[in-house]
């Protein structure tokens, strides 16, 4: 039985390879559709990684209540001592964030000012790719630049660059398992406080590491309760929830691309169905001859179904791989309200896209297969 199915597959393959132009046009169209689909899936997946909570999450973000843009969230730096004393808190890092624009865009520049001694302790997984911590510590205007940020701007240790009214010297390039870190430039806190005019003693937020992930909510409540009646009350949330609630414009944009993905799916369906219908209509006589020889109607239909699957496979492979490579080479980063989202390709997305393409090819082939197989032999033979 399996060999018979392979035989039909072989006949389908010959149909595709020997009708080169039709097949190439269809595959090209399918690959474009699947490129779009895979791109959308990449964006969706990148977003879900940073917004969907997992049981291992243990970072809270303390922000000024009712504020969204880093420019408007101002908290006294002294809060950090009170936060460190709270039960369940392992470590708190004051962070000043300066960003060129709060709106959602692909061209966001973000500086993060942190206390010099704290960075390495807080982010032990931070790896220096080039340059050194020493160099960073030695200059007040030094910056440790995330890998993707450096790639985008063509920065290397020793370079100087200016943005957002801040002029820095690149002390090193860093790589971190945290996607956010790879898209920002870490500078010294006092330096950024002065350069960005917020003044010493003021920060945008506190990043708090909690002892146990199960205690996140409790610790957040304790922090907010502590400062509730202060001049600058806080709003403390898990890092992922903070992202989801703050970068709303970016999330809306990425959410909108869902429609694009759906459109791409329909486009692929339409293209394959169109190509196969054309084939079915031009092969009325051929289908009748197959049946005359002794191929069943099911077999004749199966040849068409295999053609659909093969077209989906070829177009899907081309499109999804291209999308993966596109995102791999270009390192796109979406920014919004001081938060960055790295659009990272992944193997599961490519494989998933491929499976979707094959499935679409199969579904698209059903009607053409029926058209090819259903017409009675005698009527088909009379057609000329």
């Amino acid at each position, binding site marked *: 039985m399996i060999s018979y199915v392979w035989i039909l597959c072989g006949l389908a393959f010959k149909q595709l390879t020997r009708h080169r132009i039709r097949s190439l*046009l*269809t595959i*090209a*169209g399918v690959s474009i559709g699947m*490129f779009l689909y895979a791109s959308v899936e990449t964006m969706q997946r990148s977003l879900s990684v940073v917004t969907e909570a997992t049981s291992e999450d243990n970072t809270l973000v303390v922000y000024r209540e009712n504020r969204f843009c880093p420019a*408007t969230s101002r908290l006294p730096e002294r809060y950090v001592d009170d936060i460190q004393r709270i039960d369940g808190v392992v470590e708190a890092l004051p962070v000043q964030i300066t960003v*060129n624009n709060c709106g959602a*865009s692909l061209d966001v520049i973000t500086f993060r000012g942190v206390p010099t001694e704290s960075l390495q302790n807080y982010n032990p997984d931070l790896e220096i790719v080039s340059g050194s911590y020493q160099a960073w510590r030695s200059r007040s205007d030094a910056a440790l630049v995330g890998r993707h940020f450096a790639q985008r701007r063509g920065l290397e240790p020793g370079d100087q660059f200016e943005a957002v*009214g*801040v002029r820095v010297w690149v002390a090193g390039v860093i790589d971190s398992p945290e996607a956010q870190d790879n898209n920002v430039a870490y500078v010294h806190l006092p330096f950024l406080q002065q350069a960005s005019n917020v003044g010493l003693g003021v920060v945008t937020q506190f990043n708090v590491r909690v002892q146990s992930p199960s205690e996140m909510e409790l610790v957040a409540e304790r922090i907010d309760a502590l400062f509730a009646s202060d001049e600058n009350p806080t709003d403390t949330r898990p890092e992922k929830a903070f992202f989801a609630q703050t970068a709303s414009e970016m999330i809306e944009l990425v959410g909108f691309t869902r429609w694009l993905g759906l459109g791409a799916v329909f486009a692929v369906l339409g293209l394959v169905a169109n190509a196969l219908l054309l084939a079915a209509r031009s092969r009325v006589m051929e289908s009748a001859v197959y049946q005359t020889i002794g191929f069943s109607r099911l077999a004749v239909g199966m040849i068409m179904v295999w053609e659909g699957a093969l077209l989906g496979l070829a177009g899907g492979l081309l499109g999804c791989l291209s999308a993966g490579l596109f995102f791999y080479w270009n390192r796109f980063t979406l920014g919004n309200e001081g938060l960055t989202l790295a659009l990272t390709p992944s193997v599961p997305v490519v494989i998933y896209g491929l499976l979707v393409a094959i499935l679409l090819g199969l579904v698209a082939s059903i009607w053409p297969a029926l058209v090819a197989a259903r017409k009675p032999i005698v009527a088909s033979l009379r057609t000329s």
Partner: protein
Amino acid sequence: MLPFSYATRNLLRDPSRLAQKIGGAAMVVFLIFAAGAFNNGMERVLKATGSPQNVILLGAGSEESVERSEISVQCETLAAAGIRGIAGRAGTLAVSGEVHYMGEVLLADGSEPQALLRGVTPEVFEAHQEVRIIDGGFPGTGEVIVGRLAYLTLDTASEYLARGESITFEGQSFKVAGIFDAPGTVMESEIWFNRSDLMTLTQRENLSCIVIRMETLDAFANADLFARQRLDLELVAMRESDYYGKLAQFYAPIRGMTWLTAILIAVGAAFGGMNMLYAAFASRIREVATLQAVGYSRVSIFVSLLQESLLATLLGTLLAAFLAVGLLEGVAVNFSIGTFTLALTPDVIAMGLVAGLALGSLGAIPPALRCLKASLPVALRSN
């Protein structure tokens, strides 16, 4: 030459295939219209918002975002005194110190959308001459005025922002004292507060920017000189049109993505269309050979095939144009800069037409050439 009716009758031979061709072309051209209208709308609202005759003074380093900018309140009086060539009316100089802020407001329908808030003084109408209050008056303490299209940005019904309604900001209630319009600008999406109210509630001591209307375009140089000389104030002077131009640049990648997507889908659909044309023309090889045998030249047959294809795609273009006017024109789109409407301007329409023409002509050339390529004896025997 073959009569035009040959082309039209061939088209009508297979109604379902004709429908497919028209539908496919309509979809491609509609996409071009949509992408063009989106880009145009965004660009136009940014262009219209910034006047070249206005100067915007921002905090140094904040040229890309007025929300981040901070300048001291004293700058307002200093600028009014120190810059020559400022426009004015009846003794009032067109110098508007403003606070720009993005925050959540609580509406009467219970929703808490993020809104663009601007703290202003009465001078704002001198600096921004396109703004008019169309209902009510300038907001006093505890009051706001609302842009005509703000309800779209806030995704609520216009009744909840009508005159007399209330909104809540930072726990305080504000009454809507008036509605203003500023056609084609982002200001129409904003809520304007009395400046001191907004500064108090956001705990700000500083302004975001100062907008100054100059008497002439050349007078900008005076404002620029002021900013450069007064290093202590840490100011930067820009033409308002340049500021919004830069903002437009900031969104260029997003706009680029929109175009890229539209073009990709159009190309994909074009491939499908070409497939159909290949099949359609291939089935007529014998017919085309017969015409040649009768005495028609290849050129005349080629022209006829092209006519067929163009007719179908132009019908599709027409359909797309109707759909675009019905579904796209005037539709409001929300973005961080504010709300803008999709605009089917003459150049967008021209773009769609060109796309339709290109689809009909370029898409038909390879299949038509293939159809005419075969030698007569072979073609006459084909089935």
